């Protein structure tokens, strides 16, 4: 495995996604690839499978990608996006069931420290334990 786990933030709101990404960037440098998306296809609150796929691509790392999401539809659409990935990438994306802002910050700090995808996910999900 090489590189750091990438982080994707998926929110119903483009503003929330951007704001959470800003908070992550305050904590970690460019060694952690970070992408975010928010808003329905064509605008308004919601999530967009194509945008999630693009974000996964932008944050792609051989170490895998961790997704942080805000509410139900963002999770369902993230699961759908993972299924639409090429088979060799599908198993290297993890959805973290954690509060989106805190989870993204914790996950990216873990990623910056060289944690594996499973470790990144566990650290984020420990917030909800």
């Amino acid at each position: 495995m090489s590189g750091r786990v990438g982080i994707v933030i998926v929110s119903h709101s483009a503003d929330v996604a951007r704001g959470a990404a800003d908070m992550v960037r305050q904590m970690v440098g460019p060694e952690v690839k970070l992408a975010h998306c928010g808003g329905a296809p064509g605008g308004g609150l919601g999530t967009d499978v194509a945008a999630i796929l693009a974000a996964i691509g932008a944050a792609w790392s051989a170490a895998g990608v961790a997704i942080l999401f805000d509410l139900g539809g963002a999770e369902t659409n993230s699961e759908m996006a993972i299924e639409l990935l090429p088979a060799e990438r599908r198993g290297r994306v993890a959805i973290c069931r954690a509060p989106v802002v805190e989870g993204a910050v914790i996950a990216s700090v873990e990623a910056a420290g060289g944690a594996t995808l499973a470790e990144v996910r566990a650290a984020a999900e420990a917030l909800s334990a």
Partner: protein
Amino acid sequence: MPIEEALRRRLIRAAADSIIAHAAELTALDQAIGDGDHGLNMARGCTAVLDDLDRIAALPLPGALHAIGMTLVMKVGGASGPLFGTLFMQLGRSLPETPDRAAAAAALAEAIAAVKARGRSDVGSKTMLDALVPVQEALGDPGPDWRTRLPTVADAAAAATAPMPARRGRAAYLGARSIGHVDPGARTVALIVRALCEA
């Protein structure tokens, strides 16, 4: 029963037009117990399907259903995109090109199983499944006049979601306060079933 291009076009248009025409009602149902975007989201998905109708209707039935599902996945913008998208994509995988009633019932059962897996849900949680499952059972019944029976079954099943407390989706946050409102996903299923049976 052969489902030719002209019939495919009529069925797709009937279902999509019905959802678009009822978008305000669906949104009102969703405002009562959810985030209020179901009607708008489904209408956006259906409009995208109609925009692509020439290509989709020209495909054989399985391919057309798969294309409808993928369009909903990519365009709806809420959880209903993957949920209704999975329903149609699995129907596309399971239905033969010229299905009879029994084949349609079997394919719908497989599509319902896919929706259950996608939503990690089952009947009784105030979701689209509470309309889909009774419709599938009615479709599996070889009795006469299934085209007139199915819309009645679907309407009754959607109405029967009102007393249920929501256990999935945004409505689950409301808990007992979701009681008394019809689930918008179940209502959408009833609208699609009626539109298809009456087209």
